[in-house]
């Protein structure tokens, strides 16, 4: 009896929380969304405007500080690019690594490796960030990026790899550090999936004379393909919303689209964190509202990518997703 009520409350709580969070965010973002209109998605300039002078700017009936513009396009591009780079690196590394681990390495060593995997997943993101700033960034700027610019950058059409290579804070650094954070998420999920592949199927394939890696290709991977896609979605969501590490290593460019793989970029999450205090100094409250609008855009992007991923999975087969089914 009591348990029933407790469970009911527990079941309602996430729904309530989600409604409250989305509701308050919509309420606070409303003014800025009306002010910006479609410019919110297409505008390249995001600025709180001149809080100390000039005549107020009025758009769509909403008043904001002089020259305030709330365009999230560059931040949207930065958010998507960094997370896609992270995913493109993390997915093959994680899946390949885990395949090797589960198929070829003795079980005793597997357990030791698993512990490391989980530890890697548990490292706070600020640690990755500080490591990126102090060690990875300078190393990239001095050695890796010049080498990249001298090799890939010389290939025609690959203009995005050409110099200048900058100072080590930018798109590729952010993507690489994010990939390190995403790898354990995809790897841990994939490992559990691979363990669920029936042994009989694999043994049957072996008995037919297949090599171990043919078994992986023909039996194991098709069996867990949807699960891996779902794991990749989880990792992507993590990369989209990651704040602290990106804040430290992305270069936090505002109002510019990246010109190369080395360019500083800004992401939505990092920009919200970096500029909130400044937004609080806007007496009209529009700056805070604009950050609320940015948060809504991020929420929208996360939901859209999640939904798109689900559609891909559903189209490829009707099987249920083992993970990432929430919402």
């Amino acid at each position, binding site marked *: 009896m009591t348990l029933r009520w407790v469970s009911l409350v527990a079941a309602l709580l996430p729904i309530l929380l989600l409604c409250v969070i989305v509701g308050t965010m919509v309420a606070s973002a409303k003014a800025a969304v009306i002010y910006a209109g479609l410019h919110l998605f297409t505008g390249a300039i995001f600025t709180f405007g001149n809080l100390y002078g000039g005549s107020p700017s009025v758009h769509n009936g909403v008043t904001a500080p002089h020259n305030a513009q709330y365009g999230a396009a560059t931040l949207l591009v930065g958010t998507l690019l960094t997370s896609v780079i992270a995913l493109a690196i993390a997915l093959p590394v994680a899946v390949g690594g885990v395949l090797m681990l589960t198929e070829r390495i003795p079980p005793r060593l597997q357990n030791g490796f698993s512990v490391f995997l989980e530890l890697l997943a548990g490292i706070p993101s600020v640690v990755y960030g500080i490591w990126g700033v102090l060690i990875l960034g300078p190393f990239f700027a001095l050695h890796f990026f010049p080498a990249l610019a001298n090799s890939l950058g010389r290939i025609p059409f690959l203009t995005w790899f050409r110099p200048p290579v900058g100072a080590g804070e930018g798109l590729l650094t952010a993507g690489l550090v994010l990939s390190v954070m995403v790898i354990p998420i995809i790897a841990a999920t994939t490992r559990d999936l691979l363990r669920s592949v029936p042994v009989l199927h694999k043994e049957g394939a072996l008995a037919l004379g297949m090599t171990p890696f043919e078994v992986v290709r023909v039996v194991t991977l098709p069996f867990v393909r949807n699960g891996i896609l779902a794991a990749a979605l989880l990792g992507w969501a993590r990369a989209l919303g990651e704040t602290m590490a990106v804040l430290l290593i992305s270069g936090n460019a505002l109002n510019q689209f990246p010109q190369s793989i080395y360019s500083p970029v800004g992401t939505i999450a990092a920009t919200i964190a970096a500029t909130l205090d400044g937004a*609080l100094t806007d007496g009209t409250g529009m700056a805070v509202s604009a950050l609320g609008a940015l948060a809504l855009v991020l929420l929208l992007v996360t939901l859209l990518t999640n939904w798109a991923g689900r559609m891909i999975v559903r189209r490829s087969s009707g099987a249920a997703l083992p993970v990432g089914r929430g919402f």
Partner: protein
Amino acid sequence: MNIVARRPWAAIVVAAVAAIAMVTACGSQPSAKKPTPKPSPTINDQVGNPASSVTLSEAGSSLVEPYLAALAPQLTSAYSNITLTPSAGGSGVGISDAATNLIDLGGSDAYLSDSEMTQYPGLMNIPIAISAQEIAYNLPGVSDLKLSGNILAEIYQGKITKWNDPAIAKLNSGVNLPSATIVPIRRVDSSGDTFIFSSFLSATNSAWNNGPAFGTTVTWPAVTGELTATGNPGMVQAAHATPDSIAYIGISVKSSIQSAGLGIAELQNKAGKFVSASQATITSAVTNSAQDIPSNLAQSLIYEPGAQSYPIVNYEYMMVQKQQKDANTALAIRTFLTWAVDSSGGANATNLASVNFIALPSNVLLKIKPAIGSITSGS
């Protein structure tokens, strides 16, 4: 109960609708409660130990916080019933939390803007000390460098990219400037240092003034190879680790600028002279502007006249509500502020020297006395 057991969805929908209704109701209320402005403030000069103990909460500027942390125990030993609890969080937090009565005192490196004065008519900004900012550079082999606000603005706009640019060389005859690319470093977090640095650039370069202008967060122009850092210690670290870099850093961390081996540039003031930040040059800037301090005490100290004046100087402010909830709290706040600006109280040489702040000159003290006296419990 039966509804719940038979139709769990009904309960969920009801709860969701209730939540949205609640939120919408909250959202439609005005976000900040404005205290009613008092048209005729009664001046109350009375200070002293309150009858019962009062705790004054402070939050805001991370430059002011270490100073107040040093002051807090001394305040309690002078006035046993007043406890000050300072915390950081940023100037924006200081202003908005003081405006919404979440805290008694808000620390800020920036003064209130016109829109904030309109939005929060009961809020005052009262200077308690003076700070400044230095331009640090990492140029191996160069120990003497002169710069102007105009050149800094061009560097941070990407118009001047090399250290041996003719414009820099012209100011530094005899200095062997390298041909290296300049790496400008800027703050990524909202910051009072960004506020005063961008104010300086706005005052000296019209393209900057018409473009990014000034604020605690500004729209930085894209500069190839620029770096970002968080906080003053982050700026020192980034400049230290990056040869050919330049950074704007608050004077309160001067000792770490020096121990990091960074050079500090002499800056051209409004009179055309090149000056370093010192007690004399900072005080000169304040003294020259003090006769113009408006009654609302919101004043920029950037690029002030005077042959001696250092160009990047600012007041450190306490944001405080004119009208307090009771007489005891009002008395405690008046007492704290009066003591904090007194050279035999909080503003003694040891406290100020610990963060390289400078005391308010006497002509400024005269102007802020009435503001402190206007803090009352009203009625």
